[in-house]
């Protein structure tokens, strides 16, 4: 910089890499292999590699994010092309073996926290393109921390047993009775999209419960909601366009992509093309509705009364009176699937800790719900949750304060978590 004949002219476009620029920076035609690289860049977005393979404050693809599974913490690996600490010395065969069989470069088993049960469905061609793209990104020298798993789970060979029991899928085979769009959607959702990794409930071994595809799941104290056609808890009231909108922009007329979905939008959905987003939506809308359990009786009248007061004072300034919201800005709360999940953990997590929403070039504002851990007690959060879960067309079991207290502790929010602004205390 500053070395050109005319020093005031802008230097070459920045060599700095951000996660978004990695996925969207155009690959020049002159690059050898440009077509395959572009395909791989796109597939890296579809597979949402960045959301797991980037730790807070770290470089995209260098790994190091601690994924809290029910079995312990597993750290994502370095998939940048560094020869010593990343995949720089790998062959495309080795990469395909990891994606398809969950086997690492030295023949070791990879934990299914790396979603190879879904990546298994990816074609060889797509895997090769993805591998070529990863190899073209800047190498980062970084060693992730060791996994924190209790004996005997730290011994990778135990995964062989898991695979025997639960690894049933294989490369995607189109269903000829369905449209090309549906098949594309199925390939994306069941493959690189790995939606079911979060959105299908898991058994005690961490494998999909059979027959409950997309009925919802829990991860990291968030709830991945029901994605079936259930009108109360799933996507029953959403159109195909609504789903595509949500994935692309992180916001639609019904909801905003917070919690774990924020990163999915920012690093995946926002980078995908409309046809694929539509295909995903088409496939999801075809999922049979999760059966409704018999609903609980009416909620406690006192909780509803207290919750209404809390809502009016603490929530209405964004979500407005009667929960009408400001669609595409602050979600409307009536007939809201996210609020009516059987497991209220996601809602309580949201109120306790807040969340930002996923962003894209078209919708860059990371509108955020603030953390209410300081402002509301466990009982107050329980009551306002009961209230909104049973107002404006919603119906769901009430919440007990003890559940809030438990989650508050898990999220380490019993003490205030300050910001760099908090210089006026004591």
């Amino acid at each position, binding site marked *: 910089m500053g070395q050109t004949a005319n020093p005031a002219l802008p230097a070459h476009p920045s060599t700095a890499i951000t996660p978004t620029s990695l996925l969207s920076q155009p690959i020049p035609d002159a690059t050898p292999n440009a077509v395959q690289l572009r395909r791989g860049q796109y597939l890296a977005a579809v597979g949402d590699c960045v959301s797991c393979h980037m730790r807070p404050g770290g470089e995209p693809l260098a790994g190091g994010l601690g994924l809290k599974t029910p079995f312990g913490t597993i750290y994502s690996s370095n998939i940048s092309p560094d020869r010593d600490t990343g995949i720089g010395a790998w062959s495309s065969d080795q990469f395909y073996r990891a994606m398809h069989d969950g086997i690492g470069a030295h023949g070791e088993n990879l934990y299914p926290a790396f979603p190879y049960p879904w990546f298994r469905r990816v074609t060889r061609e797509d895997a090769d393109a993805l591998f070529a793209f990863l190899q073209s990104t800047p190498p980062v020298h970084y060693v992730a921390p060791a996994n924190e798993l209790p004996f005997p789970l730290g011994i990778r060979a135990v995964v062989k047993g898991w695979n025997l029991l639960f690894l049933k899928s294989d490369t995607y085979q189109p269903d000829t009775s369905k449209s090309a769009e549906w098949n594309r959607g199925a390939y994306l959702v069941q493959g690189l999209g790995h939606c079911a990794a979060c959105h299908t409930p898991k058994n005690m071994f961490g494998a999909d419960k059979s027959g409950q595809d997309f009925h919802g799941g829990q991860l990291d104290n968030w709830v991945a909601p029901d994605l079936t056609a259930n009108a109360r808890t799933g996507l029953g009231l959403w159109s195909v366009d609504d789903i595509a909108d949500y994935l692309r922009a992180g916001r639609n007329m019904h909801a905003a992509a917070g919690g774990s979905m924020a990163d999915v939008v920012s690093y995946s959905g926002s980078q995908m093309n409309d046809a694929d987003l539509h295909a995903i939506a088409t496939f999801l809308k075809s999922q049979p509705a999760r059966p409704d359990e018999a609903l609980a009786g009416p909620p406690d009248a006192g909780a509803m009364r207290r919750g209404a007061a809390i809502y009016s004072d603490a929530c209405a300034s964004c979500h407005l009176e009667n929960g009408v919201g*400001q669609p595409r800005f602050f979600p409307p709360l009536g007939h809201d699937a996210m609020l009516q999940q059987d497991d209220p953990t996601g809602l309580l997590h949201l109120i306790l800790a807040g969340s930002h929403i996923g962003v894209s070039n078209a919708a860059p504002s990371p509108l955020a719900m603030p953390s209410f851990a300081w402002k509301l007690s466990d009982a107050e959060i329980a009551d306002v949750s009961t209230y909104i879960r049973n107002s404006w067309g919603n119906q769901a079991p009430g919440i007990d304060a003890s559940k809030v207290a438990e989650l508050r502790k898990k999220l380490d929010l019993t003490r205030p978590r300050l910001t760099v*602004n908090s210089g006026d205390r004591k």
Partner: protein
Amino acid sequence: MASQLPPVDAVIVGFGWTGAIMAQQLCDAGLNVVALERGPWRDTATDFATGFAQDELRYMWRHHLFQNVSYDTLTVRNNTSQDALPMRHLGSFLLGTGVGSGGVHWNGQIWRFLPSDFNARSHNAQRYGEDAVSGDDLTVQDWGVSYDELESSYDAFDKLCGTCGKAGKLNGKPQPGGNPFEGNRSSEYPNPPMAQTLAPTLFGEAATRLGYHPFPHPTGNMSQPYTNPLGAQMGACTYCGFCEKFGCGNYSKASPQTTVLPYLMRKPNFVLKTECEVLRVELTPDRKRATGITYVNSAGEEFFQPAEMVVLSAYVLQNVRLLLLSGIGKPYDPKTGEGVVGKNYAYQTMSSVNAFFDDKILNPFIGAGALATVIDDFNGDNFDHSGLGFIGGAYIAGMVTGGRPIEMIYTPQGTPDWGLQWKHAAAKNYLRSFAISVHGSCMSHRGNYLDLDPTYRDIHGRPMLRMTFDFGANEHRMSDYVTDRAAEVARAMNPREIKINRRTGSWSVTPYQTTHNTGGAIMGESPSNSVVNKYLQSWDVPNVFSLGAGAFPQNAGYNPTGTVAALTYFSAREIIARYLKSPGPLVQA
């Protein structure tokens, strides 16, 4: 010993409105830009959330978002016969700090200056004679840029902020319901005006009865949800009444955070560093070119940041101080009248009238920072000043920004400030009273200026800025006149009684008036009487630009932010169109 960093195309000093707008413009043009801000990162949901933003004690009185004068202040005096002493506690003006700075806690009042404001000297001299612009030690100057040249830049800021209002003059045609005195607009406001509460409505009706032309104040508080050209989104204002001095918790006030940062922060060629204070601009030995800036961070580490361009956007006071500390331009000497840096410092001339009703509930707590019905009939040169003995004017606003009880309890004339009588008056009048604001111009005078203090130093050992300022006879006459007009409107509202709060005596650091400091790095047509040209480029060091209201040769009767932002766009566009292709002076001296 400062460590040297890799060079960048542009370094931006201070990261409020002007820094954010300039950074966005330069980054879109492909430059590598680093912005340095000496305060902290701030954002809506973490730092002024809906759950705790409405805290009058913490934000208004404990100054939590404002500059902490414990660490950096300035010295003040009314004239050179006094010793300047430190402003030991913020009062008259509430300086910002941190990311977004004053743009976080401003009112959201978005104005354009009048076309005649840009030619305050020649226009008034022509109409009222030479004495009108040079008597009373006036040093009024023409700007060297016209309203018409700036119109599209004003428009850009309106679209960025989603300004809510009603045009008064649209493509040459007068529009009912708008300000009939305003300069011409090329487009309608992006959003309709905010709905008015009772007090501004009554004010407007009274003003109409008196033959004036009321219109809704243009607001940066949103009347409806809005998405700006950068894709950034703002929600609808809920009239919470905790606007000015406060961050907005529900994204409904225009700020760098809500309008620019969502777009700008995504750019790989933009880097923001917080807790970094720029000590000085570094120059080549011949002092004709800046090589970059030296800064120190809160860890005590010192760095030299080389840059092709230095943009000063650290607010008028720090900008002028940095120019003086860096030796850019000749410092102004009020005794000789020579020199330019620090010259023509000005402020805002404020007064008010309270109206008290028995028969009406006004609910003052329902408010927004720019919620008002305004008349401009007595601003600028919108009226005949013959025989009045002053130039300039003020807008009169029936304004309800909130009803925060520590700050905004109005009691009738003669009520003591404490005791049972005060308490009873507060209880009786709180819901039924409000204030009409008179927001007046402030001309420049020979004796009002900024320079470096000879005695007091900051924590880095650098001299503090010294402010020498007082209202002139021109300001007092103007203020008395327009305050009287405001009192007439107040009486026409048929209250039980009114109370007139005039601007009397010398300027004082208490109480709060406005944070509209202007001048000191003024714009002009020639280096002999100004610091920067119309593109805010230093006459002396062409790769240094000084943004902000320091460029105003004198202050008009409007809030400055709209004009500050317009000048920034105007400068940025010229930098991109001409300067980058051929760096050097953009205006031949």
